[in-house]
């Protein structure tokens, strides 16, 4: 028994490091899983009972998904075709209006401004997160043991911070009067920043939001990058170095090709996460000043629940979901291919 439980642990190998994340072990484990069951199944000549078994096992999960995820999705779509404001909500009226909400949104310059802003917001964040995370992952790989541990702990703290708590702390760091950031900038000699109100301007609000999102998201990428690097055989680096390759060349010819699945998957995950991020944008400044920092999820929420135009909010939600769907389609194609290879 002891032997077997050890084999289980190989999935998350213990080492002296603070953070251990093995990406490639999962691929190896998955490979063994894929081929074997097929043979057993067909050889055994399964009866009706065992043929039904998987479906029975999946039944609760399927029911839950349909009821708790499918239903809200469907409901959102239905609401988007209704004229539903506070009056209709309180009086339980259903007023179908066809595509009116969509026409209104698609011809509204505000909606397109929000959409454009969301795209830029996502792009900026994801580039910063991926580049920053990759560089920090490489750095972790280069540091001595103690420094690596210290940096890992710092990264872990940022990663573990609950979003709402982190947002509150950032509001405090950037507080107009008592914020330590303003004090620091003043000390550096930038005296006009001593009492600067970061929330008074679109760009400085976004600066705070982006800093917060990047701060929270980099650790995930950095840890995975570091874990990925530890799976690359040392001989590959040595061979590249023998050929006279510099750091950049090594990244391009050894690291990137080896970790391509990691880069693809993480980038798309970050795109989706950043695109959807709500709490950071909403809680920092409520989409203000003057609606200028609203991104799509915040816009859907504020127009719908805040403005009590629930039908309009639902239409924005559906448009957001469609855009997410387009992003995800590509991502899932890659994922499904991976699943086929298992």
């Amino acid at each position, binding site marked *: 028994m002891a032997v077997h439980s050890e084999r289980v642990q190989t999935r998350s190998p213990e080492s002296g490091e603070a953070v251990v994340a093995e990406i490639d072990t999962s691929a190896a484990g998955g490979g063994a899983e894929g081929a074997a069951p097929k043979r057993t199944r067909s050889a055994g000549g399964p009866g009706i009972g065992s043929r039904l078994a998987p479906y029975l096992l999946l039944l609760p999960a399927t029911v839950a998904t349909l009821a708790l995820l499918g239903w809200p999705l469907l409901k959102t779509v239905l609401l988007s075709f209704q004229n539903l404001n506070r009056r209709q909500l309180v009086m339980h009226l259903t007023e179908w209006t066809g595509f009116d909400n969509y026409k209104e949104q698609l011809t509204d310059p505000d909606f397109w401004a929000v959409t454009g802003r969301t795209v830029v917001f996502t792009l900026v964040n994801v580039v910063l997160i991926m580049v920053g995370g990759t560089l920090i992952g490489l750095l972790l790989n280069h540091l001595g043991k103690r420094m690596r541990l210290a940096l890992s702990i710092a990264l872990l703290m940022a990663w573990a911070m609950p979003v709402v708590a982190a947002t509150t702390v950032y509001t405090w760091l950037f507080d107009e009067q008592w914020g330590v950031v303003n004090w620091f900038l003043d000390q550096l000699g930038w005296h006009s920043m001593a009492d600067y109100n970061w929330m008074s301007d679109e760009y400085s609000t976004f600066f705070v939001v982006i800093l917060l999102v990047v701060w929270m998201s980099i650790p995930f990428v950095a840890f995975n990058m570091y874990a990925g690097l530890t799976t690359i055989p040392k001989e590959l680096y040595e061979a590249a170095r023998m050929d006279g390759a510099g750091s950049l060349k090594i990244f391009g010819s050894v690291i990137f090709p080896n970790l391509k699945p990691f880069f693809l998957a993480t980038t798309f995950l970050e795109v989706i996460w950043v695109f959807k991020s709500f709490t950071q944008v909403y809680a920092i400044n409520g989409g203000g000043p003057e609606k200028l920092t609203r991104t799509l999820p915040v816009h859907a929420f504020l127009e719908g629940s805040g403005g009590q135009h629930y039908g309009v909010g639902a239409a924005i939600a559906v448009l957001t979901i469609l855009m997410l769907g387009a992003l995800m389609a590509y991502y899932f194609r890659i*994922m499904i291919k991976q699943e086929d290879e298992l």
Partner: protein
Amino acid sequence: MRRSLFGRTWPNVIAVVLIVFFAFPVYWMIATAFKQDRDIISKTPVFIPFDATFDHFSTAVNAPDFWTYVTNSATVTVGAVVISLVIATLAAFAIARMRFRGRKTFVLVIMMAQMAPWEVMTIAVYMISRDNDMLNSLLPLTLFYMMMVLPFTIWTLRGFIAAVPKELEESAMVDGCTRTQAFVKVIFPLLAPGLMSTSLFGFITAWNEFPLVLIVNKEQGKTLPLWLSSFKTAFGNDWGATMAASTMFAIPVLILFVFLQRKAVGGLTDGAVKG
């Protein structure tokens, strides 16, 4: 050999800057929570609270309804995690160990559900809860949080189950166990660490959830994230109390993470990176 790339000093200097960048906000939250008011609002920031006080924590704890928020959060979170664990174990076993028609579709749905845009579906969730007379209970929140963590739980457990050698189960079946018995007696005990870490990550997700509670059930379903976000307004500019509240909210998660990361970061990244 390795260091020759950058030299010795620069990586360390950069690392120190990064350590400050990532750790400082967390440190600043905790430090502010312990500071005297005069140190919080001083023109020159006080970096180390030598004169520490617990006053802000008692302000926060004695705030109206604090314990309601704690109890609600705990109930909803534990309920969501337990239910999702049961449902997920069954499903994970099926997709990790069995081949059947529709398996791939199910896996795809699970991956997509993991990306579900809950942030924009709040209106629908609210109306569904209302139409089913559930606005006065914690049930809708529990169920929807359960759904939020379910796909991730299935995905991670699937990995843990797949890692248990198949031969173990087969030898148990040769010894006369049924498949169910083989699962309960052989696999289940080996899954304990997986179940632990999966449920803890589920716990963190549900504990943190914010957008949904913002609209659904504001009155009866008060949970801690909502409490925290309302704190600034409730206490005006009482940053000490706000940071004490944030610290109390974050500490359980920070501690869980420290315990978890060695064992479970592998599982987390498997689940996350693969979908």
